[in-house]
């Protein structure tokens, strides 16, 4: 009895090896696409539409921090993922480190036709496809803000704003505004300049009530000024109703930070053809316009904005006139630990 069972098992094992070999050609036609990105950031309908059009299954996994994606990419993620979301700030290091596949952009004609080249710049053009973007700007409540107007970053360190500001956190979000306020490059790698920016930020820190949860604090009335993402502003304005007293600070000269979330293909990605198809699909004007209904963020896809609903186009969180006066977060290389050091000092106080 036992012998028979052993024989049966051996036969089964042999068969499964054969079956595996036989099924190899079938797997060569790509039926699976593995994507690693932020959670709650792409429409389920869009994914379902792509799956139906291509007879495939899209597996989404989600990150909780930008660092997660970087860790995956630098550890060699090609065997696990076909597309990974990261942001413009890391592109230079990722390209130089050889962690990314160079893209054949002729395979993404929709991207070539529709994406605004101001955001899909030459230096990153062959390694990524931009998805959505976010501005980090200043918003205030006209009824409760002690200042009549905020027109530059230096207004934020005025003593009148003590205990009034809610702010996003993170060294690479905070130091650039200080550097801009001081007249330096927002991506400075000069330690003296970073040290000066630290001094500026200690004054800013005195006015800040809390880091993070800016939109909730604005809605609950805990703060009257917030330095935050446009998406958070959209939420706060929505919560406070149509006649909300929130205005986007009318900045005159200081540029604001624009972050771009983009897809890259990790070196050695397994399902590249399908990944190209996906990238081209999301750059289709109608597809992206539908996605913007659910995720009304800033978008680098001009044709999609054209095709988007009036509600999106007239969104009050995007109603400001200095959209092109921007700076990007660039790779600061070896200066990153310097930033971290001063950021730590700032927070320890």
């Amino acid at each position, binding site marked *: 009895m036992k012998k028979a069972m052993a024989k049966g098992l051996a036969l089964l094992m042999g068969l499964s090896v054969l079956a595996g070999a036989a099924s190899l050609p079938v797997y060569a036609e790509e039926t699976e696409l593995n994507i690693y990105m932020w959670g709650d950031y792409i429409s389920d309908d869009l994914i379902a539409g792509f799956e139906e059009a291509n007879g495939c299954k899209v597996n989404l996994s989600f990150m909780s921090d930008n660092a997660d994606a970087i860790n995956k990419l630098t550890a060699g993620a090609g065997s696990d993922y076909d597309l990974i979301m990261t942001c413009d700030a890391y592109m230079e290091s990722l390209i130089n480190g050889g962690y990314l596949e160079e893209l054949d952009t002729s395979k993404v004609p929709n991207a070539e036709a529709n994406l605004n080249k101001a955001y899909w710049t030459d230096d990153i053009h062959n390694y990524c496809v931009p998805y959505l973007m976010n501005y980090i700007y200043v918003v205030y409540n006209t009824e409760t803000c002690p200042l009549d107007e905020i027109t530059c970053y230096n207004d934020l360190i005025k003593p009148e704003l003590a205990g009034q500001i809610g702010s996003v*956190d993170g060294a690479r979000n905070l130091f650039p505004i200080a550097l801009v306020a001081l007249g330096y490059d927002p991506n400075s790698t000069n330690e003296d300049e970073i040290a000066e920016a630290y001094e500026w930020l200690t004054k800013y820190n005195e006015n800040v*009530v809390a880091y993070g949860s800016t939109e909730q*604090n604005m809605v609950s009335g*805990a703060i009257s000024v917030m330095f935050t993402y446009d998406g958070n502003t959209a939420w706060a304005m929505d919560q406070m109703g149509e006649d909300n007293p929130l205005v986007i600070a009318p900045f005159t000269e200081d540029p604001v930070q624009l972050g771009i979330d983009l897809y890259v293909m990790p070196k050695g990605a397994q399902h590249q053809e399908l990944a190209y198809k996906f990238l081209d699909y999301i750059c289709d004007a109608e597809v992206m316009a539908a996605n913007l209904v659910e995720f009304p963020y800033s978008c680098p896809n001009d044709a999609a904005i054209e095709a988007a609903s009036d509600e999106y186009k007239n969104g009050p969180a995007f109603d400001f006139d200095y959209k092109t006066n921007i700076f990007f977060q660039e790779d600061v290389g070896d200066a990153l630990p310097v930033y*971290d050091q001063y950021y*730590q000092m700032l927070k320890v*106080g």
Partner: protein
Amino acid sequence: MNRSSGTKKKKNRLPVLAQAGPVSVWMILFVTLPLLFIIYVSFMTRGTFGGIEYTFSTESYRTILDPMYFSVILKSLKVAAVTTILCLLFGYPLAYFIARKPPETASKLIMLLMIPFWTNGMMRLNAWMLFFQVNGPVNYVLTHLGIVEKPVMFLYTDWLVNIGLFTNMLPFAVLPMYSSIEKLQKSLLEASSDLGADPVRTFLKVTLPLTFPGIFSAIILTFIPALGTYTVTDMLGGGKVLYIGNIIKNQFGTIRNWPLGAALSVLLLVITALLIFIYSRFAGIEDMEVV
């Protein structure tokens, strides 16, 4: 009766391995090895891009010597001490009160004390924030009763952080003290008063010394977690003031300096070990009263 003694005999014969084995494996896998790994990582180098480079370095420990970290540790010790003192001041009378009730009432009261802990810690903190926010219920009542003119900003103050830590830690202080006080023999107190001691003297000379192991356990059980906590200070403190727990968390998160985070964790371990050592001078570990 025969049957019960039979099972008892069987239990005694269970090999030691079966009794202590699973726990030992668990502890080695999930406590000892990770601890050793943390100590190992603390002697490695930070990669520019975050991550760990496996080259030996004492840089992280030299960084800790920076006065900045010293001040953070001092600040953390202070907030943990305030929390512990509050827990003792409010916890001891409460434990005394519960211990003097009949057993059924006492167990119900203990249960009441534990009920908030049936929910998730983050939920409790979020509830606190909603409760105390500018347009929240507390401010609503205060302004409508005319006690204050303008809503009070409770959130993101040291006051609220301390209250938050205190409420989170209170049960851990009450339970060991309750267990100590409950064991206290009434006859000793009667003897003390028969011999002419007034209640204050009886409390200071009899009750307090006899319940000391419970008090010390309460100190250990509140001080150590309060020292390492970061969620309470993060949420109720608005991420503005960092304690040692927050700094460690940041090293593994946004700042991505794992070796420094590991070195700070080792430092926290040393402080904890020191406390346990002091405890063992005052009372045996086996006296540690935990319910």
